C-alpha cells in the first residue's frame, strides 16, 4: 500500500518529509541546550558548504580540493566589511559577500575547468593555496595568522540587535533561526538547480563526457557554471560562519579544510541530494566530539574515514537508501 502511494506521488511525499524535518529543526532549540543549538548552527552552515560542493562532485563529477578558498573569501569579506566600512548588517554581508565569492569562483573556475580528474583537483588545491599564502603574507591587510575579529551582526535589516544582558543566549538562538531559514532557501534553490535541465545536463556530462559532447552540450561552459554556483554556495557558508565564530583566520583557507569539506560530503554520501546535508551536520559533531574525547583525535578521524571509504563508499545516506531500496524490492508483490 505504502509502495503504491510512494510510487504515485513521490514528490509530495518528499516535500512532506522535508517539511517535517524543517519543523523539527525549528522546534529543536526549545528542547536542547544552548551549546547544542550553537553546534547545530555550525552543522547547518557546514551542510550548506557541502551542498554547494556536491553540485560539483556528485552531479558534475569533478573533485575539487580547493573549496576552502570560497569559504574563506566569504568569511574574510565579512571581516573587511566590518573593519573598513563599519557594516554590521547581516543582510549587507550576504548581499555584498555573495558577489565577491561568485566572482572568485568564476575566476578560479575558468582556470580550472579546462582540466579534469586529478589535474583539476590539484589545480584547485594549488589556487586555494595561493590564496592562503597571500592571506597569510599580507598580514597588514588580513591580520595574518592572527586573523580578523567579527562581532555580532544585526539581523533582519537592523531590527534585531544583540547587546545587553543575555545577549549571547539571544544571539545564539536568533542566529540559529536565521541560518535555518537561509539553509532552507539554499536547499530549495539547489533542489531546483539539480532537477532543472541544467542539472540533468551536468549529470549527463558526468556520466559520459563524449556522448554529452555529441549531443551538443558545451562541456566547458556547463562545468564552469556549475563551478560558479558551487563556489558561491560555499562562500555563503563562509559568510554565515564568521559571525558565529567571531573570528576568521587563514586556517579556513588551508588545504586540510578543503579536505574536511570532501570528508563531510563523503560521509553523508555524494550520490544523493541529502547526503551532503547529513554529512555536514554529522561531521561537525564528529570532529567536535573527537577533539573533546581524545588527544588522538586525528587517529579517530582517520580510522573513521578509512572505514567509511571501505564499507560505506556511498556514504550514510547512500547506505540507507540502498537498504531501503532492497527492502522495497522485497516488498514488491511477487
Amino acid at each position: 500500500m505504502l509502495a503504491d502511494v510512494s510510487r504515485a506521488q513521490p514528490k509530495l511525499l518528499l516535500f512532506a518529509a522535508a517539511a517535517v524535518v524543517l519543523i523539527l529543526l525549528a522546534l529543536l532549540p526549545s528542547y536542547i541546550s544552548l551549546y547544542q543549538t550553537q553546534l547545530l548552527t555550525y552543522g547547518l552552515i557546514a551542510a550548506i558548504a557541502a551542498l554547494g560542493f556536491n553540485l560539483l562532485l556528485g552531479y558534475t563529477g569533478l573533485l575539487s580540493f580547493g573549496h576552502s578558498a570560497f569559504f574563506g573569501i566569504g568569511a574574510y569579506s565579512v571581516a573587511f566589511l566590518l573593519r573598513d566600512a563599519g557594516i554590521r548588517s547581516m543582510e549587507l554581508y550576504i548581499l555584498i559577500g555573495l558577489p565577491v565569492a561568485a566572482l572568485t569562483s568564476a575566476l578560479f573556475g575558468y582556470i580550472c575547468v579546462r582540466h579534469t580528474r586529478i589535474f583539476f583537483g590539484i589545480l584547485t588545491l594549488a589556487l586555494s593555496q595561493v590564496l592562503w599564502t597571500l592571506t597569510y603574507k599580507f598580514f597588514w591587510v588580513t591580520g595574518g595568522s592572527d586573523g580578523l575579529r567579527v562581532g555580532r551582526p544585526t539581523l533582519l535589516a537592523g531590527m534585531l540587535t544583540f547587546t545587553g544582558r543575555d545577549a549571547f543566549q539571544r544571539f545564539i538562538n536568533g542566529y540559529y533561526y536565521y541560518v535555518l531559514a537561509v539553509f532552507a532557501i539554499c536547499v530549495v534553490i539547489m533542489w531546483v538547480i539539480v532537477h532543472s535541465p541544467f542539472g540533468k545536463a551536468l549529470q549527463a556530462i558526468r556520466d559520459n563526457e563524449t556522448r554529452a559532447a555529441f549531443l551538443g552540450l558545451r562541456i566547458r561552459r556547463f562545468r564552469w557554471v556549475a563551478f560558479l554556483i558551487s563556489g558561491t554556495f560555499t562562500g555563503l557558508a563562509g559568510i554565515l560562519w564568521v559571525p558565529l565564530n567571531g573570528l576568521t583566520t587563514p586556517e579556513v583557507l588551508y588545504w586540510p579544510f578543503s579536505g574536511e569539506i570532501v570528508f563531510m560530503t563523503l560521509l553523508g554520501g555524494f550520490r544523493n541530494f541529502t547526503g551532503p546535508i547529513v554529512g555536514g551536520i554529522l561531521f561537525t559533531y564528529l570532529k567536535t566530539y573527537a577533539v573533546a574525547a581524545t588527544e588522538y583525535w586525528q587517529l579517530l578521524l582517520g580510522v573513521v574515514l578509512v572505514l567509511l571509504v571501505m564499507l560505506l563508499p556511498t556514504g550514510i545516506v547512500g547506505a540507507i537508501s540502498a537498504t531501503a531500496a532492497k527492502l522495497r524490492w522485497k516488498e514488491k508483490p511477487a
Partner: protein
Amino acid sequence: MDKPTAVDRRKFLGALGVTVGGTGLAGAGLVAGPQLVKAAGEPPKGKIPDTPYRTGHMTFFTSPAAVLGEPSYKGHIMAAEEINAQGGFLGKRKIETITADEAAGTDANVKELRRMKLEGKIDLFTGIISSGNTPALGPVAEELSLLTIFVDGCTDFLFDKAVPQPKYTFRITNIQSADGITSAIGTAQTWPQVRRIAHIHPDYSYGRNAAEHFTLALERLLPGTEVVSESWPKLGTTDFTSHITKAMSANPDLLYTAVWGGDYVAFYKQALRYGLFDKMKVATTLALGVAPHAIGKDHPEGVLAGVHSNYYFTYPGGDRWPLNKEFVQRYHKRWNEYPNFQSEGSYVTLYMLKKAIERANQLVGGWPDDEVIISQLEGMGYDAPSGYVYIRPDNHQGYKDAVIGFSKNLPDYPFSTWDPNRVITIPIRNITAPPSWPKPGQGHNESTAAADWIKKTWPKATG
C-alpha cells in the same frame, strides 16, 4: 611631538634599572611582595560546597609546540595535586581538570572552549600557548562569562584590541612586547659594539612583534644600528640552511631570532655546522624557554638565551629564594624533568586563584562569586617561584620582572643551561607601556601600545 633627547647609553641602561647578577643573588625583581591578608592561616568563612571545581586546560599536546605545551599542563597538574592534597580550594572543593589539544586549530579551539563551558561546565579555563589563540578565545570567554586565566599566548593584541576592557579574562605571563625589548636591552648591555643586525624569525605575529620591538628599542639604545638581512621562515620549518647562509652572507655582528621550540633545535644544530656562532653574536627571545632538556649540550655557549622574558628554573637560585628551589625540586620529583616558564606560569595561576578565592571568602563568606574573585585577582601581588608577580587591574595582565640569561654548559645538568653569573633582570614597569597609555586605534596606529610608548617617550642613546 618632542624629539627624543640624547642620553648616554650607560645612563640609559641605568635608568631602565637593568641589573646583571648571579643566580644565587636576588636581582632587582625580587622585592618580596607585601603579605597582605593572612588568609592562608584563617579558616574559611561560611558554608562551602564540596562539589569539585572543574578546570579546563588547553595546550599543545602534539606538534612541535608540544615542547612548550606539555610543561604547561604539568605545572597545572602539580599545583592541582598539591592543592587537592589539602582538600582543594577552601579545603572543600577539589580541582578536576579536563584537557584539550590546542593543536586542533583556532576554529576548533573556539568550539571546544564553548563546549567546555556549556557542556563540560567548567569553572575556570586556563592554558593556551599560541598567540594566535588568545585573541580568539578571550572574547569568547568574556561572552560566556567564564573566568579565564591564560598561561601564555602573550600577544599584546589580546588586551590592546581584542579584549580592551577585560572582565573575566586574565593572563599570567609577561606581555609579548617585553620579549623584543628585553633582548634589545640584553644586547645593548652586553655587546654595545654591534651595529649590523640580521634577523631570522618565524613568519607570524610573534616573530613580527619580536622583530619590531627589538628594532624599536635597539635603535634607541645603540646608535647607528642597521638591519642587514631578514628572513621569515614559516613556523614549523625544519630546514634553515638557506636562511643561515643568507644571514651569514650579510656579515652581521649580531643575529637576532625569535625562532622557538622544535624549530629552534633544528636551527641551532644546523647553524653550528655552518660555523654561524663563530662569526657573530646571537640573541634569542625563546631559545631556552622550552622544556630545559630539549636543548642539548651541543648548544653553543654565550648565546643570549631568552625565556620569553619570564623565568628560567635556575634563577633565582640557591637559597636566596626558597620558593623557587622548592618548586624546582618538587617538579623534578613529580615529572623527572625541570620546569620551564609555562610550568611556572600554570602553577602560579592556580595558586594565585587560590589566594584570590581565600581572600574573597574572607570578605563575603561562603563560596565567592566570580565577580568577587575577579576583584581580588585585580591588583594582586604574589610571591611566585620566579619572583614577584603582579596582576595589573586595568588590563588583567600579569607582570613580573623580565629576565634573560646566557647559555652555558654546566656539569650539573645534561643540557644547556644559564650562566649562573650573568643573569640580566629588568624591572617590568620600565619596559612596558603604563596603564593609561592609549591603545592602538586611540590616537595612533602603531601595532601595540608599547610600540607607541617607545616611539614617544624613549630617548636615543649616544655612545
